[in-house]
């Protein structure tokens, strides 16, 4: 029997598999190399007892010059910035200059076209699909990052030259493989949330990416097939002073008039435009450029924008989403939740 020559590993499952094995598809029946007998069967699930033991990382750090700074600094810096911005914005609104500026630029560019077709069903569904799919893309993406928790601008990846990390410095007194470097993420954050599950995370990331990109491409077509694109694309320079005006009004905690059923204010339009037409294509391009086949095919561009640049830019664009998503959700909730949800989830005013 040919099965004997394969010397399948023992155990009931292996024996059953051997008994059920189809005849070899090749007409030439040859015994395998003796080493084939030393190959082992594998589980169809992740068994923790056979997996890389967990290892905690550290709070993400950014290198400026030679010093590393914890990203936790962003909390007090963010707090002081917000409080300071509120004070400054309120101060501006008390000046004659500030009053005149806001009177002249109320927040919505007056030359911007008004879209009178509401929020059609396709748009509401595509918005939902987009956010639904993005949860998997983000979680699996962070899982992939955790498998080599360092970012570089150089191609060599020499320890110490990274600009971002959530892992300790590479030990110099022992052999430290790239696999040793992988860190564990909580299972609610990473997908699937065990250390060194990059194989599974990549299936999620790439499969859902394809759906997400398809949804995005159909959205682009739909946006430009209808007049909905006019909500997102700035069509007048007035958008910029109006965006500044909107920012001042929001920051002063005295919110501008909302006409989002027909027209977004300047800040909304610019941030939505950036998300849909800048960040998303950047994500797709820098994602693909991390591939060996694609990067090696791109010639000069592949050398200039090598994988580490692509990986870092991919992460920075993700940083935009990390800023945009909570800001967007917060604004949906505090600028009139009922009306906002009516627009995007019911197509009603």
């Amino acid at each position, binding site marked *: 029997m040919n099965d004997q020559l394969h010397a399948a590993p023992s155990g009931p499952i292996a024996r059953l598999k051997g008994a059920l094995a189809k005849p070899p598809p090749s007409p030439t029946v040859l015994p395998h190399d003796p080493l084939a007998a030393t190959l082992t069967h594998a589980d169809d699930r992740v068994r923790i007892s056979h997996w890389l033991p967990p290892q905690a990382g550290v709070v993400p750090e950014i290198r400026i010059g030679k010093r590393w700074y914890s990203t936790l600094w962003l909390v007090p810096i963010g707090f002081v910035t917000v409080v300071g911005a509120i004070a400054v914005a309120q101060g501006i609104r008390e000046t004659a200059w500030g009053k005149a500026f806001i009177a002249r630029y109320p927040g919505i560019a007056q030359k911007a076209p008004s879209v009178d077709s509401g929020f059609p069903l396709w748009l509401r569904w595509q918005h939902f699909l987009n956010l639904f799919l993005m949860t998997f893309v983000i979680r699996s993406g962070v899982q992939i990052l955790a498998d080599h928790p360092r970012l570089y601008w150089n191609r060599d990846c020499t320890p110490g030259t990274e600009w971002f990390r959530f892992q300790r410095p590479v030990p110099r007194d022992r052999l430290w*493989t790239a696999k040793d470097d992988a860190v564990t993420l909580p299972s609610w954050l990473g997908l699937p949330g065990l250390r060194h599950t990059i*194989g599974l995370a990549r299936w999620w990331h790439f499969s859902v990416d394809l759906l997400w990109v398809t949804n995005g491409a159909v959205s682009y077509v739909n946006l430009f097939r209808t007049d909905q694109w006019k909500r997102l694309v700035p069509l007048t320079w007035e958008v910029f002073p109006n965006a500044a005006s909107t920012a001042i009004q929001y920051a002063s905690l005295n919110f501008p008039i909302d006409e989002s059923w027909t027209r977004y204010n300047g800040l909304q339009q610019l941030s939505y435009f950036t998300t849909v037409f800048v960040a998303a294509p950047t994500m797709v391009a820098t994602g693909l450029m991390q591939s060996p086949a694609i990067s*090696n095919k791109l010639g000069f561009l592949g050398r200039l924008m090598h994988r580490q640049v692509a990986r870092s830019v991919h992460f920075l664009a993700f940083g935009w989403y990390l800023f945009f998503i909570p800001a967007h959700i917060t604004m949906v909730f505090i600028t009139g939740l009922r009306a906002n949800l009516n627009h*995007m989830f019911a197509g009603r005013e």
Partner: protein
Amino acid sequence: MAEETEKSRAGYLPFALAMAAVGTAWWAASPLTVRHARKVQKIGTFMTGWLTALSEWWDPNAQLTEKDISPFFWPNGTMPHSAEYEALAANGFADYRLRVNGLVETPREFSLAELKAMPKQQQITTHFCIQGWTGVAKWGGVPMRHILDLVKPTPEARYAAFYSFAEGSDGGTYYDVHTLHNMRHHLTILAYEMNNAGVSILHGAPLRLRCENELGFKMVKWISAIELVHDYADLGAGQGGYNEDHEFFSYRNPI
């Protein structure tokens, strides 16, 4: 108009349902993936296989220059530690024989000296690890197409299986499978030199594979034998390599 009786609240329910869907999927995704890892691999192959198959046929040809060579190159994987390997290493691999067999007309064994006497090819290329890091090195070795010409694959041969002296992370011999198309690529070599010196034990001595349109884990280090096969379903767990079997990696990895 001014006495509009009640404002619409039509958005609340669809929003709540949408968030429930997101929450449920979020909660279920990780545990289901851990429990049904092989299914995730299969579904992922179904969904993205066509794209990776397509990009595998691209002709990767990027080569770099001496000044691009990385001063550091991340080590990875499980080092070989068998008595057989240690004896070979102690002797400078003088007794090493590369076995090439399977679906070939003339199975052969090559010593390192014989391999070094064959046409030598040098290339400076980027190594792409699945984990995210890269490194540039100058590799020197025998073109795989030359080996294939010597052993003459039979018409049934479709894949080359590379066996390593090292074990994988969960025990059992490390191996990986490649298409003959990839093996005939002009940048696919069996490297015995790295940066003008012999490949170190850390990086795969005496022989390691270079296949420039794939990720690093497919470029088997510490090669002990190469077998040409028609199918890889009956090797290991049948997924085309150790990490494909045990860590649910993709068999095709040009991306």
